Structures are given as C-alpha cells and as structure tokens.
C-alpha cells in the first residue's frame, strides 16, 4: 500500500531536537495527556473578524498550555501544531477504522430511507463508502439485518437501493440479492399492503412520466440553456410558470361565466347585443372597442338575470360572477403564496442567516453543467475568472470610506432619491392628464373617426413610453450613486422601476374607480377596454423592443465592429412580465376573457423572444445569481398581486356599479349581492341563521385573531430555539474536530517515538486498542 498523504502533518524536524530528553513510554504519557482533552487546552487567537470568532477557528495558530509533569511533549506543544508529516500504512489503517468512515452509515441510511418512505423532506445523512471490492456483500448483509426484523420495509427496496452511490450494475445486484433473501409476506394483510404500495409506486412513476410529457417547450428551453446558461433560461421558465398560472384562471372564467352567458343568449328569443354592434373592422384588435364592446369580452355584456336552461335549474349570474371572481383570486393567492414561501425557504433560510459563503459557493456552483456551446463555455471561464479577480481585489482593499466621503455619498444618494420621487410624481400626473383629457372625451367625439382611433390608444402608448425611457434616466442617475456592489445597484434599480409601474397603475386605478364612474355610463366596460388596450400595447412595445434593440443591433454589429451584439436584459424582461400579469389580475373582474388574451400574448412573446435570443443576442460575461433574483421576482409578483386584489376589492366593495349594464345593476355596491345570498340562506334554515349570527359576533372574530397570534408566536419560538440549537451543534462539531486532531497527533507521536526505539510495529497496548476499537462498531 502506498503512502497516503494525510493532512495531519507534524513538523518532524522540530521533534527530533528533543528526542534525547524523552524517556517516556507510550502508555504513561498517553494517559496523562488524554485526561485533559484538547478542547480545554486549545484556545484561539480571536482576530476580531466579521465571522463570529467562536464559530470560525482562525487559521493555523493553536497554542496549548503544557500540562504539568509531561516534559517530554514540551517540544511538541510549545510550537504551533502545524500538522506536518506523513502517515504510513499502520496509521492509514487506523484512520480507515474511524467510525466516520465506516460502512454502517450506508446500511443505516438505506434502512432509514425505507423507514422514511412517506416523508417528503430530504434527509441529510452522509453515506461515505470505502472503495472496497466486497462492498456489495457488506451492504447486502447490513441491510438484510434490518429487513429481517421488519417485513413491511421490504416494499420500497427500490427507493432505498437507488440512493446507494455506487454503479448501476452493483445496485442491481444488491437489489437482486436482497429480493431473493426477502421473506414472502405471510399474512393477507401484509400481502394487501405490498400490493397497495406497489400500485402507489407505479402511480408515482406514471405521474412523473406525465409531468415530463406535459413539459411545455422543453426542447426550446434546452437549446437556450445550452447556449446561454441558467441565467437567461430562468426568464423563460418564469414566463412558462406565469402562463401556467393563467390557464386555470381562464378555465374558471370560461366555464362559469362565458358559457352560461352564451347559453343564456342562445335560449333567448331576442338576444340583445351582437346584432346592433358595429361591424368588425381590424382595428378592434388594438382598441378593444367597437365590435368587441358588446360581447362576452366585457363585464357590461353579462346579464343580471337568471339563466334557466332546464326548468328548475337556476343559475344566477350575479352570484356566479362574484363567486368566480373570488374563486380565482383565492386560487392565485394560494399558488403564489406557496411558491413564494418555498422559494424563500430554499434560498434564504437554507443559505444561512449571517455567514456568507461566497467563495465556496462560487467554486462549487460556478460551472453550469448544462452548457453545450464552446463560445458560452469560453465566456463562462472568462466570467468566473473575472469574478475571482473581483472578489480577490475586493477583499484586499478594506473599503472604509472616510467621514466626509460618506457624508458626500449619502447626500448624493438622498438627492437622487428626491429626483426619483419627483419623476414618479410627474409620471403619475402625466398619466392622469392623458387619461382625463383624451380618454373620456371619446364619448363626445364619436363622429370624428380619427379621434376614436387615436384617443383611446393614447394613454397606453404614453404609459409604455414612460416605462421605456424613465428607467434609462434611473440608470443614468445610479451611476452617480456609486454603490459598493453591483448587486445593490441592481436591487435599487429594480425597486425604482417597480415603484414607477406601481405609481402609474395606482393613478389609473384611482381614475377608473373615482372619475370614470361619474362621467361614463357603462364604466366597467370602459375599464375592461382600457386594460385590454394596455395589454395589447405592452405586447407591441415588447415586440418592438425585440425588433429594434436586438435584431437591428445585430445587423449593425455585422457592419460596424464597434457595436456589440445585445445581451439579453433578464431583469428588465422579467419585471415586464410581472407588470403584464398584474394588468391581467386587475382586469379579470372587468373583462372575463382577458386571461385568454394574456395567454396568447405570452405564447407569442415566448416564441419571439426565444428566436430573438438565440439569433440576435450574445451571452453575457457578467454573472447573474439566478436563485436569489428568482425569489425577488416571485416576491414582486406577489406584492403586485396583493395590490391588484386591493384595487379590485375597492371597486367591489365601495363603488357603485353602473345602472345600465352588467350583472349588478340596481345594487348599491357589488358586494351587496353577497348579503342577499346570505339572507336567502338564513331564510331557508334557522340553523344557518344561528351560524351566521355566531360568526358575525365580535367574540368569535377576537377569538380567531388571538388564536392566529398564538400560532405565530409558537412557530417563531420554535424557529428561534432551533437556531440556538444549530449554533450549539456547530460549536460542538468544531471542538470534536479538534479533539480528533489532537488524538491523531498523539498517536502518531507515540508511534514515531516507538519507531525510533526500534519498535517497528505498534506495541501490544496500541494493537489491543485498535482491535477493541474495530470491535465496537459491530456491537452497536
């Protein structure tokens, strides 16, 4: 067996000086030292680092106070234990016998998999393997011991065997051997359970197969990932996810609102609507008015009567409308909330609270294994090189600004924020002006066809133009702010852009809910139309951006070498997606077919962007932390969803619906219809009356609130105590490691000392110790 280099090194030369003084046998010195464990003697030089000193052992200097009466080890302990030297085969053998490298862990883990087959959280057991030829046999024996004691574990054998990290053929052999030795289930009950689990497993496979088959656009995503890496493909995955959210919403509105409405008109003798509509000119696709105005597209068209297809089946449109509305909002809330919390848990809590593993993270997740093109891999090498350079230089310069500089920087930042707020206010005012002056006047100038075309489109175009140019101003201003890390600059820029969009939408919502109902007859349809126009113009601008900024730039780059090909602006595009989705959420109540429009828009956008990226863009050298930014994007989506809900809630609860159109004519607020529903239930049975009286009472609500607060407090206490526990374990881990190192050194000392005196193999005491050590794992 060749010498293996182990990191426990010991400075050989320093020891040699002191050999003459030493006259101690192995046992004596060993026991003395062993009485005082390393953890008592070692102390660290606290460096006053950012990292908490007790959790991080600063490098190399471990001084130990020499215990009395142990002169021989003076030499060793008074120097820093620098861990030099080599171990020969006996020490290597000893190291192999350490429990942390033993095989039982494998069998343990496999058995644990069997026992834990139904839990969903990922276990973190370590499974270290020796590179041993009789590996299979030993695994089989160990697992079999567990299996023979418990029949029902035998079913999920496959899942357990799958986790063993060895080659496929070995796994198959292990499984075969285990299956052969497995006892057949004796009782009928066990047989039934066996078949059930087998069925369950097959269903899981089928589900896996189906979800892979339904995987939309998989080949496209693969191509993009191969050429650009995970950063760009994260935008497309986000787009796909938003699309998939919209599909159930659309199905809900289609089934519960559109179809009944169609059936209602079908069975009516003189259906109103389509006949006296204006003829279809192509322009309606842009403006949404005209032919579309009196169709199922908008709120105003829906009847407030009861649809009665078969005698006796009643379908009250007004109940259906509001209940469907709350239904899809709740559905979206659940989906978004779940995915945001899951993302948050994965990327923030697991990534640790205070300590930033930046270097390690870079090395371990640096390379993107999905890259297939040479150009991208060159760029990736370059990008990693740049990152290394950057963090190396950043760590060397202690970037502590002096006070004047600090004050100056913060004053500049304050000024920039003031400028930003002014800009936002300006944009809000502009939106308001355009809305009031251009959109409403449409009613009066219906005859002049030009104005009918231009004025409705004015507001969306102005909005999109603002969203295109004002972020450029923000970027310009940010250059002055001199952020320390580009990451902060990115976050601040994203925040400002979203604040801009939110401001403009807020102004619009105010306009729609406050001013429009006073001057327009069927204001809900108007709101629906406005939102439709916003969505369509947003799509046109996105396509235009692709065309001009990416395609034309590529053509220019061909002619003039100075202009480079565009890089795909991931952040900007994703935020645009968030914006368009929030438009959809604002608009569903007033335009039930809007999700269909948005779905079509997303599909078009996907294909256009996909081909544009592959043909027109070049991969970026700058790194992009996809996981962290994904959490931020989902967070923004969630916030905008809440804001849209609040806005629509205002409309539902407070604003009076129009009198001439829609399902809520003659109600004071849309929500009133719920009261009538509840009243009708109350009238039907006194039990319901009691229940509602109870729910309405303040006592119940107060009790509910108190209960929720208690649950919140409890979970927070649990999480805090877990954190404290983790800290304790870390400390323990560190001191255990030091113990081990100390003991290994000691053993090596003893052995080397023995070698010097002509004892070539370990003394009887040591051998006996080794044997008893190796016997222990078998017993436990």
């Amino acid at each position, binding site marked *: 067996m060749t010498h293996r280099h182990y990191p426990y090194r010991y400075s050989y030369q320093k020891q040699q000086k002191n050999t003459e003084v030493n006259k101690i046998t192995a046992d004596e010195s060993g026991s003395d030292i062993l009485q005082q464990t390393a953890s008592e003697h070692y102390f660290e030089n606290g460096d006053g680092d950012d990292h908490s000193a007790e959790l991080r052992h600063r*490098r190399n200097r471990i001084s130990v106070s020499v215990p009395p009466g142990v002169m021989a080890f003076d030499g060793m302990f008074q120097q820093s234990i620098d861990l030099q030297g080599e171990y020969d085969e006996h020490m290597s053998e000893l190291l192999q016998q350490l429990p942390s490298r033993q095989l039982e862990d494998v069998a343990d883990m496999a058995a644990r998999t069997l026992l834990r087959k139904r839990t969903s959280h990922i276990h973190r057991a370590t499974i270290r393997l020796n590179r041993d030829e009789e590996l299979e046999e030993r695994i089989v024996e160990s697992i079999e011991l567990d299996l023979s004691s418990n029949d029902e574990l035998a079913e999920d054998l496959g899942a357990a065997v799958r986790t063993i990290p060895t080659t*496929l053929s070995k796994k198959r052999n292990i499984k075969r051997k285990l299956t052969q030795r497995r006892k057949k289930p004796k009782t009928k009950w066990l047989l039934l359970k066996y078949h059930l689990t087998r069925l369950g497993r097959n269903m899981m496979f089928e589900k896996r197969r189906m979800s892979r088959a339904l995987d939309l656009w998989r080949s496209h995503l693969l191509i993009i990932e191969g050429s650009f890496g995970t950063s760009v493909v994260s935008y497309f995955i986000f787009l796909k996810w938003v699309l998939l959210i919209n599909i159930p919403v659309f199905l809900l509105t289609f089934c519960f609102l559109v179809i009944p409405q169609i059936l209602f008109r079908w069975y009516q003798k003189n259906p109103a609507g389509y006949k006296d509509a204006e003829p279809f000119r192509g322009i309606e696709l842009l403006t949404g008015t005209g032919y579309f105005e009196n169709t199922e597209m908008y709120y105003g068209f829906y009847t407030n009567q009861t649809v009665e297809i078969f005698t006796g089946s009643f379908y009250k449109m007004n109940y259906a409308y509001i209940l469907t509305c709350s239904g899809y909002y709740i559905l979206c809330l659940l989906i978004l909330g779940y995915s945001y919390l899951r993302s948050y848990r994965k990327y923030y809590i697991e*990534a640790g609270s205070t300590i930033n593993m930046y270097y390690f993270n870079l090395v371990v997740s640096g390379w993107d294994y999905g890259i*297939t093109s040479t150009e991208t891999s060159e760029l990736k090498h370059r990008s990693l090189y740049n990152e290394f350079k950057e963090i190396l230089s950043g760590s060397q310069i202690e970037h502590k600004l002096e006070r004047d500089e600090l004050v100056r920087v913060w004053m500049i930042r304050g000024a920039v924020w003031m400028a930003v707020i002014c800009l936002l206010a300006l944009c809000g005012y502009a939106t308001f002006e355009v809305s009031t002056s251009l959109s409403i006047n449409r009613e009066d100038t219906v005859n002049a066809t030009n104005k009918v075309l231009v004025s409705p489109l004015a507001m969306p175009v102005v909005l999109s133009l603002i969203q295109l140019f004002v972020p450029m101003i923000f970027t310009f201003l940010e250059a002055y702010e001199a952020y320390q890390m580009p990451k902060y600059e990115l976050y601040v820029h994203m925040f400002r852009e979203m604040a801009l969009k939110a401001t403009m939408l807020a102004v619009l919502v105010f306009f729609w809910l406050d001013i429009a109902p006073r001057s327009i007859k069927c204001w809900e349809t108007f709101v629906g139309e406005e939102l439709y126009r916003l969505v369509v113009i947003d799509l046109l601008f996105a396509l235009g951006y692709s065309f001009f900024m990416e395609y034309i730039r590529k053509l220019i780059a061909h002619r003039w070498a100075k202009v480079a090909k565009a890089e795909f602006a991931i952040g900007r595009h994703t935020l645009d997606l968030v914006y368009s989705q929030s438009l959809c959420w604002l608009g569903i109540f007033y335009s039930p077919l809007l999700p269909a429009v948005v779905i079509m828009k997303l599909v078009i956008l996907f294909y256009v962007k996909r081909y544009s990226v592959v043909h027109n863009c070049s991969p970026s050298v700058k790194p992009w932390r996809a996981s962290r930014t994904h959490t931020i994007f989902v967070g923004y989506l969630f916030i905008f969803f809440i804001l849209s809900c609040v806005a629509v809630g205002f409309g539902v609860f407070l604003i009076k619906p129009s009198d001439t159109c829609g399902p809520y004519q003659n109600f004071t607020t849309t929500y009133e219809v719920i009261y009538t529903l509840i009243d009708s239930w109350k009238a039907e049975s006194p039990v319901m009356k009691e229940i509602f009286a109870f729910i309405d009472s303040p006592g119940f609500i107060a009790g509910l609130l108190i209960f929720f607060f208690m649950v919140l407090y409890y979970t927070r206490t649990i999480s805090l105590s877990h954190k404290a526990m983790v800290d304790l374990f870390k400390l323990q881990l560190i001191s255990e490691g030091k113990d081990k190192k100390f003991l290994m050194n000691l053993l090596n000392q003893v052995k080397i000392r023995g070698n010097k005196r002509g004892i070539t193999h370990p003394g009887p005491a040591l051998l006996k110790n080794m044997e008893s050590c190796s016997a222990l794992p078998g017993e436990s």
Partner: protein
Amino acid sequence: MGGTQSVFTEDELDDYQTLTYLSKKEILLVHKRFKALDPASVEADKNARLPMEKIRELPELKVNPFRDQICKVFSSSGDGMTFEDFLDMMSVFSDGAPKNVKVEYAFRVYDFDGDDLISESDLKQVIESLIGSNRLTEDELQQLIDNIMDEADLDDDKTLSFAEFEHVISKAPDFVNSFRIRM
C-alpha cells in the same frame, strides 16, 4: 414511447426505472444519445463499453472542464463507460435526483486525487479548471484557497471532509441548479 421501442424489454426498463431517477421515456432518450456517440458498437451490444474519447464527444461533457474527472467517477471499470454507467451519470445529473445524491457525486468529482478529502491541491485544480485558459497568479490562487478553507473547513485541518462539504453545500442555493444536465 412504450410499445414501439424494441431495444429493451419491459423488465429491463422497469429495472432501470426503479434503480435510477429517470422515467422510461428519458431512459430511452439517454440510450439514443449514447448510441449517437458510436452507433456501430451500440448497435451490436446495447450495453457496449465505449472508450473515454467517445464519451467525451457528448456536447455537455465536451465543454465541461471536469469531464475527465466525471468520466472517472462514473466509470465502473476505470476505462470507458458502459451504457449503464452512462445512465447512472444521467440519473445523478437529472432533475429527479435528490440533493444528497448530487452532493455525494459532486464531492467525488472535485476530489481529484481520490483520497476522500478535498485538499488544497484538489481545490487548486478545481479553480484552475474553472477559469480555463485564463491564469491567476500563485498568490491569488493561494488567497482564494485560504478563503475557501476559512469558510468551509470547520475543524481546521486544511482539508474538507465529506461532512464539512455537505454542511457547507447546504448554504449554496445555486448548486442544484448548476449541477444538472437536462435531457
């Protein structure tokens, strides 16, 4: 799809499906890609052993700086990969593999000298592979390695054992996303 393929029997496919994290369709896809590397040999024996040079022709491995190490880790015989080794590799790199399996194999890939520990020389080779043809100076390399050891090495023995590696990887959220080859 299921009924029309004739390369594997149903039993074999079932077996593969149980033992790996791939679905049947993906297993067939993997076999197709394996065959594309050397159609003649695979036609003759569906579990043929292809030499390392042929395996390295796979697009994802071709540009990967760790390709030699990956091939070494997943090869059962040390010299070329059979289809089953290839399937194993694709299974570990797939979406379905849990994090601890990926961590286990990542540790082996980054352990260049194969001593079950990631020492400083291993890290040096990893960093050099990552930056490709660009070069960092010795001092810079040493500084990087020291920083990494600071972060990850808990018991301060200048190497990363598997336990330390696994512990620190839990704080690297991008790991699962990057350690993946999609089929």
